[in-house]
């Protein structure tokens, strides 16, 4: 469905404390411009981001959810992001059955140094979600 005039997507970004949240900070201190239509939720490690978190965001009307963490091998709890992948795949499997478009949900690894990459991921994801329009769940929830 096409988005109403002047509509901006509502995006939830889950970010781990040690890499991707710090990556967002790097983007900030480097004054890299990026799309601002997201709310960030910081967790200690991406392994914490269980399906319930993501599903609740969609239930409450998020148009897109981005799950982010340290690159594989860099997790500060060793294998937390490997667990994050498992949780993400499980989430994707059920959102697919539910009928939500795949592009509303994304997993990205962003290190603390990758400020520019953070901005790029946010911009790309925001544009993708913008193109999809409001989430079918947000239409009623709003």
């Amino acid at each position, binding site marked *: 469905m096409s988005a109403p005039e002047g509509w901006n997507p509502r995006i939830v970004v889950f970010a781990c404390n040690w890499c991707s949240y710090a990556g967002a900070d790097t983007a900030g201190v480097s004054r890299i411009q990026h799309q601002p239509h997201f709310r960030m939720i910081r967790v200690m490690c991406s392994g914490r981001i269980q399906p*319930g978190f993501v599903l609740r965001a969609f239930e409450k009307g998020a148009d897109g959810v981005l799950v982010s963490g340290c690159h594989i091998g860099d997790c500060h709890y060793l294998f937390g992001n490997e667990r994050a992948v498992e949780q993400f795949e499980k989430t994707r499997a059920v959102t697919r059955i539910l009928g939500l478009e795949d592009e509303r949900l994304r997993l990205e690894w962003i290190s603390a140094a990758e400020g520019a990459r953070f901005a790029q991921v946010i911009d790309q994801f925001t544009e993708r979600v913008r193109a999809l329009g409001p989430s079918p769940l947000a239409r009623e929830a709003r």
Partner: protein
Amino acid sequence: MTRAHGERLSDIAARTRAWACYDCGKCSATCPVTRIGGALSPRRTVLSTNLLHADVAVYGAEIASCLTCGACDRRCPVQVDFTGLVRALREVSHEEDAQPECPHGGALQSLMRMMARGTLQQQRLDWLGPDLHTDPAHGAVFLWTGCTVYYDAFFPEYGMRTLDVTRAAVRLLNALGQVPVVSPDEVCCGHDLLWNGDRASFEALARRNAALIQESGAEVVVAPCAECARTLRLDYGPFLGSSPRIQHLSEYLAERLSDLPLVRETTRRVTFQDPCRLGRHLGVVDAPRSLLAAVPGLELVEMAHAGLNATCCAGGTWSACDRYAKKLQVERLKEAKATGAEILVTACPKCQIHFRCAQKDPNLGQDIAIEMQDVAQVLADAL
């Protein structure tokens, strides 16, 4: 306690006959959670409701740990509807946002509530193969598939294959010459949300499903899941009226046993787990047994607690899962093993999920390892 609370609780007490309690304590003596040391005493909950003590009856840990298995209801000499009481109290605590976090981070409840919105086109029928004959909209028999497609996707780590139960159900109905309705628009029956206290979402789901069933022209809705069968039969009255007939798959098949070509011999020995929703809630204990007896060569050995006395799988409504639930599951699996059976047969996909989870305990391993199948699978294998 506010005045509103007082009125609410006394109304609930009247509706569920809690007022009739004369404090004999049989409920607490029967309750599996109480027996194992959990945070529940049905008697205390009943008396607290009668005394309008919302701190215990609404905000306490007790109502969340009740399995709503109905064991106490059966023994109560004055017919207090304890499971009904717990359901009503959970509605109050849900409205006040006073409930503990649901297991699995509330993911399953979120899924159900999103289905209730009705703004999504689900992709729920990928499991249908060319060998399974179904109709997406119209037919005399409506096969209620439930949430098995979601469970298999959500619990890959348990090797969940609850969809095999659904497939077996289609094969059995096909063997009887039926082409059942399997709808792409079915949504969760709402059982868990209703028992978690979220009546508004339950009603939204029920309205959608009732319309779907009515448009199908079905004479009977057949559910392989005990919870769905219970909900459609006992809770869909206001939405569905008195028709069509609602049956658990085992009831439907038991009435047509002579038409079912069960030819393949087996030498296996099985035991049967009565789901609480099928046995105590719906009073159906003979139908699944008559099906098992009809499989050539199959031997059924009963557990120490069977039929209306069966211990439940301790996880039915996704409302609480704790060490007491685990302990009950382990006990039950040991009871199943003690029969010498090779297969634990159930008639509800949820029983399988909860027992399989308990079997992940690395310390118990072989003590509780037993193959599990649904009665529909056992029967379909004999075709």
